[in-house]
């Protein structure tokens, strides 16, 4: 893995899971059918649970709190990959993002499980186990889309569009593995493109940040319900 401090690594992972969790939750109530409402809501809840645990570890390193890390930073300070920031997409692109992210995340977690730091290796093993179900869900959809010509065309188009973003989730040395898995499943090659780097942000991030932090900003000392 590329050199970075433990706190930076934890923040990258946490920010990815937090923003993807929010984006996935945008399907609650309006997914194409009820099972997917439930699936995307449950996946979102679990991703946000991962973000919380990761922020708690990062907070110990930085002598702050998980809430402060999740909600008190400015939009440009978040370390997430732009893939997770993109606003609710149409269904084929949502499935493509889900599949690309979960595949990239599996590759990243495999590397982190081998970390010398027992805290990093431990939390990566825990997250990886739970993510199995997210991957099975993504795989089920990929299988479903690939059986029809229309589905195959839509998935391919969506993957191609999101490909530079997907590469941006991972460090350089892990990207060939992502390429080989996605190309292998689609049975085609994907273009050589410049990855959209982590730390650069889409305009959608600021909008989402406004929504995500509104309660925190209106009641800085803690909201009473």
């Amino acid at each position, binding site marked *: 893995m590329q050199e970075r401090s433990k706190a930076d690594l934890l923040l990258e992972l946490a920010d990815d899971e937090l923003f993807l969790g929010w984006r996935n939750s945008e399907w609650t109530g309006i997914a194409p059918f009820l*099972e997917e409402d439930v699936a995307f809501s449950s996946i979102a809840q679990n991703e946000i*649970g991962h973000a919380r645990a990761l922020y708690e570890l990062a907070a110990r390193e930085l002598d702050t709190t998980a809430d402060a890390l999740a909600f008190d930073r400015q939009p440009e300070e978040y370390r997430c990959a732009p893939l997770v920031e993109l606003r609710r997409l149409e269904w084929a692109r949502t499935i493509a993002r889900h599949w690309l992210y979960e595949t990239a995340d599996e590759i990243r977690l495999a590397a982190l499980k081998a970390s010398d730091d027992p805290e990093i290796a431990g939390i990566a093993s825990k997250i990886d*186990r739970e993510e199995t179900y997210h991957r099975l869900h993504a795989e089920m959809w990929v299988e479903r889309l690939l059986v029809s010509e229309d589905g195959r065309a839509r998935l391919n188009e969506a993957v191609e569009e999101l490909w530079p973003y997907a590469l941006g989730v991972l460090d350089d040395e892990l990207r060939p593995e992502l390429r080989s898995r996605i190309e292998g499943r689609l049975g085609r090659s994907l273009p050589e493109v410049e990855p959209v780097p982590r730390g650069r942000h889409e305009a959608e991030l600021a909008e989402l940040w406004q929504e995500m932090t509104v309660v925190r900003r209106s009641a800085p000392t803690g909201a009473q319900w």
Partner: protein
Amino acid sequence: MVTAEEIWAALAEIPDPEIPAISLVDLGVVKSVEVDGRRVRIEFTPTFMGCPALERMRVEMTAAVEELGAEAEIEVVLDDSWSSERISAEGREKLRTAGFAPPAPRTTEGVTLVQLERGPFRCPYCGSTDTRLENIFGPTPCRSIRYCSACRQPFEQFKTL
């Protein structure tokens, strides 16, 4: 002075906030209990990290320890030491009686789609294995939804983790 046995017994009385038929001890989320004078240190392993009941469990464990006149220190263990294999035999039976199919055993290859779609999952109501996967996800992160073709009932299946 409180003993570890008394603490374990008190924790075994706390129902899981989401599935009250089973206790926290049956669920296997209490990894260890250490007593040092008035201080009680509990290692707590979450089931799924997205579980909305985690905070509730901490609060209830703290209250149970305080009721015995001791001070609780709950340490959340963030690794993969909890697995569905940690649910006790008694806990599995309680789940079944309450209408939740207990988790299938964890195999070395982990969970696969083929296993979820074709595996012999038993209906907790009628015992038939003629059941099918309806949704990998359910009302909480730890459950899936299946349908029993024999008694025509949907049921909740505890996930294998």
